[in-house]
């Protein structure tokens, strides 16, 4: 029970203690990637621990399977500690550093920004259009020109990509030497795409108690693939616009609408399911101080798809204007906060899986 070296935070020191316990036990080796990765080390620096924490999918199995979990005096609770370390790591690797505090009261910041963006669009519509246009139906480019939309969202997206890249770089450098290969990348894509490690080693992930279910994996798949489909819809629409000169709105049966609808439905059910699961989650498994961040991201995804679907259904009615302002405001806030919210978990998780694929080959 020792910290091998000085650590940045008490959570990291505790992670070091836990990994030392687990390394002398190893019973959980078959549950996920964290334990085999831990066994490849004898000492744990902060970068190693951040890597292990992001490799952990939070399936919960190793708490209910641990003979040393609280109330045992060894107090081994890997999922909750790694959740704290993981969440701390998002803050730690935030770029630019000045924006790291956004992670502290994440829910509040994101809510504020969302309100601000929506208000901005409403005011913008009112200011630039004749008031009648807000109650107009059908054509949203009358409310906001396509070029303006592309500029605004393109800029927000480009900034997000830049900030995410810088963060990811810092994380990657901290967790070991840089090299990795296409096959590692491919392995990580398969592991992430199937959520291979969100299944308690095969029995299903645990959330409320020691009874395994696979619901969180299902909801996460709906969310993730829903997100990808929506993204694909946007890409296809952009191609239509610039390559084929076909402008929105598109018919129900057109590819962007089909992709967007399918994705949107996934992105309504998925986040709702994940929120419900979070609500029921055993507090022993959680980093209870960061609920705001988790909830904010899920709610933003949920609202994005909900308003998007509403827009699709009601685009022929006078509700179009207000709905469009709402939808665009939320999407803009979502884009702008991608680097400063729960979204980053996917990035670091993926990078950790690449690192793991690479390490596995070496040992």
């Amino acid at each position, binding site marked *: 029970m020792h910290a091998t070296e000085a650590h940045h935070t008490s959570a990291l020191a505790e992670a070091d203690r836990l990994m030392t316990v687990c390394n002398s036990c190893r*019973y959980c080796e078959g549950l996920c990637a964290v334990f085999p990765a831990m066994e490849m080390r004898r000492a744990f620096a902060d970068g190693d621990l951040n890597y292990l924490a992001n490799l952990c999918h939070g399936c919960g199995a190793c708490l209910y399977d641990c003979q040393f979990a609280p109330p*045992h005096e060894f107090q081994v609770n890997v999922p909750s500690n790694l959740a704290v370390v993981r969440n701390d790591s998002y803050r730690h690797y935030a770029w630019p550093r000045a924006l790291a505090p956004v992670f502290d009261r994440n829910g509040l910041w994101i809510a504020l920004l969302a309100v601000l963006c929506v208000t901005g669009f409403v005011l913008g519509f009112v200011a630039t259009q004749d008031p009648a246009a807000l109650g107009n139906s059908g054509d949203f480019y009358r409310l906001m020109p396509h070029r303006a939309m592309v500029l605004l969202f393109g800029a927000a997206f480009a900034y997000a990509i830049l900030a995410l890249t810088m963060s990811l770089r810092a994380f990657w450098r901290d967790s070991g030497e840089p090299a990795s290969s296409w096959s590692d990348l491919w392995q990580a894509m398969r592991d992430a795409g199937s959520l291979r490690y969100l299944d308690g080693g095969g029995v299903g992930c645990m959330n409320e108690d020691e009874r395994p279910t696979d619901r969180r994996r299902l909801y996460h798949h709906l969310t993730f693939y829903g997100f990808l489909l929506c993204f694909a819809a946007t890409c296809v629409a952009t191609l239509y616009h610039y390559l084929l000169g076909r402008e929105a709105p598109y018919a129900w049966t057109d590819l962007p609408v089909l992709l967007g609808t399918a994705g949107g439905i996934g992105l309504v059910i998925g986040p709702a399911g994940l929120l419900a699961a979070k609500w029921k989650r055993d507090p022993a498994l959680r980093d209870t101080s960061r609920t705001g961040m988790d909830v904010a991201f899920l709610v933003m995804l949920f609202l994005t798809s909900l308003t998007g679907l509403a827009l699709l259904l009601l685009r022929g009615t006078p509700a179009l204007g207000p709905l469009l302002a709402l939808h665009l405001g939320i999407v803009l806030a979502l884009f702008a906060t991608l680097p400063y919210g729960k979204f980053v978990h996917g990035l670091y998780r993926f990078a950790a899986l690449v690192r793991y694929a690479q390490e596995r080959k070496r040992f």
Partner: protein
Amino acid sequence: MLDVLVIGGGNAALCAAIAARRDGASVKVLEAASKFYRGGNTRHTRNMRCAHDHATATLTGPYTEAEFFDDLLLVTQGQTDEALARQMIAESKSMLDWIAEQGVRFQPSLGGTLSLGRTNSFFLGGGRAMLNALYRTAEALGVEIEYEAEVVGLDVENGMFLAARLADGREIRAGTLIAASGGFEANIEWLKESWGAAADNFLIRGSPHNRGTVLKLLLDKGVEPVGDPTQCHAVAIDARAPKFDGGIITRLDCVVFGIVVNKHCQRFYDEGEDVWPKRYAIWGRLVAAQPDQIAYILFDARSLELFMPSLYPPIQAPTVAELARKLDLDAQALTRTVEQFNEAVQPGTFDHTQLDDCRTEGLTPPKSHWARRIETAPFYAYPVRPGITFTYLGTRVDADARMRMADGKPAANMFAAGEIMAGNILGRGYAAGIGMTIGSVFGRIAGQRAAKHARN
């Protein structure tokens, strides 16, 4: 009336309860521990040893019944009930599937345990995960489970079980009894009967609930005992471990890499006599025989990373004398012992994967293998005490897991499974994974026979 009452909440108890319930009996389980601590020493296990004719997804090769039996003969030096042992080994074959059908999952052998990859099936997530699965299955089948329900009295007449009395005064009557309440390793007073005051310094590796209350009650009611009442399975574990329940992570696998001294800085046994898996189980008793039941494993920097890490860090110092001071030992005496050892070390080629030719000459006791000079700073030490795994005394049973009375007659309606009857199979010694085999196989037999008895 209740058909089957199971006392205990570990592997043997749950296998018995599930088997009895599957055969149609009404079943109640009385577990002394709370829900978190349910399952006694089973919580701390990681694998079971079953015979199998072919490699499986998690086992690297066949392990025949004959080979299993040979291994058992070897470790017990023939002290086993051969018929019962052969029956157990034969039934262990179907156990792998049966256990999996109850929801338990297996995984390949853990890192650092390669030598068991062919013979032993490892539980995915370890013993507690295994128990969780058994409890889920039992509950789904309708087995009634009571926690914090310690049995303190038994109503038995002429080998006929009538009722069990709980600590809170309640009486529970049932048609049959299955005793699966483990050994008495956590009962220091009882251990003192054979070990004297030394037992006060023993550490108990598993559950504090295995106090042998039910075993004693049964023996008092005329059940025939089996196994050596004075013996227990003991290994040398880190002296800083808690009194109870420290589990697997306090074990130390480094004896073969250094020397072991007592509190007078004297060596007392050949640390390199044989490969560690064959010797680890004698060190508990060796340390128990030393003054104050304490000893110290000493090694140097070259050996630090040759063995599995354990919970507590080794105590470390730049010189042997400094190390002695940290350990509260006589610095001169320890330095002298190390020097004498170093002088006796013969040249050789160190190879910790086999019996190498590194040994001492002219030293008593000798170190026969892996003897390397202790000379590269920093120097390290682990203090160790006897860690008790289980006791051997139990109840005699027949092929139906039915208890036998001291007069040689079978008990009317009393069965036993697991540690409480392990002495039938293990007269002495131990082979990794057999504890769980005994529990599962005789648990299933006891459950089936008890259900049948209750039906008639």
